[in-house]
């Protein structure tokens, strides 16, 4: 007899499709923290993360028959969460502080003659409330399309190919957005981190 932790995603999905709510519950339990954590990383707000968590699993339940198993379940899940985050942004129009990176102020070229070195202090000693607030503020300024690329690639460790699949973009487009996002965030944190 297999314990729940030994049942594959595929099996839980199959059982869920036949109306097995116990299997669906196990699937939700397996991925609820991933969805909540990713939503929080994108919107930096507990209330929005909670809403996205609910909307995502309702979408999963309704669309489970459309999951064809060609990609990993987590990849499919990330694409649903991302769509929910993007839709919420459009609906609420709250991200008014976002900058435009279409014509980036931070050039991909040599942006300044001398680049100051960042402090070598242990990051743990820097992880105070001021820094956390600055990290949140900086990432919220990033347009959502760039923010999700940065989080998927650099925080969630998805490959460029997986991120491209999740976002329905080409790999070069993912790389381009990632490059701009990294440079933008670095610039935003620069004054806090320079030695």
């Amino acid at each position, binding site marked *: 007899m297999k314990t729940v932790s030994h049942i594959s995603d595929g099996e839980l999905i199959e059982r869920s499709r036949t109306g097995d709510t116990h299997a669906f519950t196990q699937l939700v339990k397996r991925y609820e923290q991933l969805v909540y*954590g990713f939503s929080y990383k994108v919107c930096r707000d507990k209330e929005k993360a909670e809403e996205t*968590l609910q909307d995502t699993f309702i979408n999963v339940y309704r669309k489970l028959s459309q999951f064809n198993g060609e990609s990993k379940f987590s990849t499919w899940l990330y694409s649903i969460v991302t769509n929910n985050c993007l839709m919420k942004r459009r609906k609420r129009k709250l991200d008014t502080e976002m900058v435009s990176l279409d014509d980036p102020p931070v050039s991909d*070229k040599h942006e300044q003659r001398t*680049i100051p070195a960042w402090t070598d202090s242990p990051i743990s000693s820097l*992880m105070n409330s001021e820094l956390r607030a600055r990290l949140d503020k900086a990432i919220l300024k990033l347009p959502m399309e760039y923010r999700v690329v940065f989080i998927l690639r*650099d*925080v969630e460790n998805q490959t460029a190919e997986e991120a491209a699949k999740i976002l329905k973009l080409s790999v070069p487009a993912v790389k381009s957005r*990632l490059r701009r996002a990294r440079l933008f965030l670095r610039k935003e944190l620069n004054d806090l981190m320079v030695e």
Partner: protein
Amino acid sequence: MMAKKTRTVHRHHSLHCADVFSHICENLDADLDSPQCREIKRHIAGCPDCTALLDSLKKTVYLYRTVPIPTIPASSRRKLYSVLSLETGRRLK
């Protein structure tokens, strides 16, 4: 001695910082072992600006990776299962 200095300068300028910047920004974690990457690695070793950029980009990513992310509050989990129970028509817990 002069010849050695000239070679060093030449190596440093054989790649432009802008090219290296672009490569660094796209491939922070890449293994720098291909012939092209070895040249980039040499450039970075001799270029304080590119060294500083690489280091600061790695630290930027590290900060976002390590900032604590909350776990789901019990109240959010209860709401989730309540909403899903309504959706599925069966009690989920």
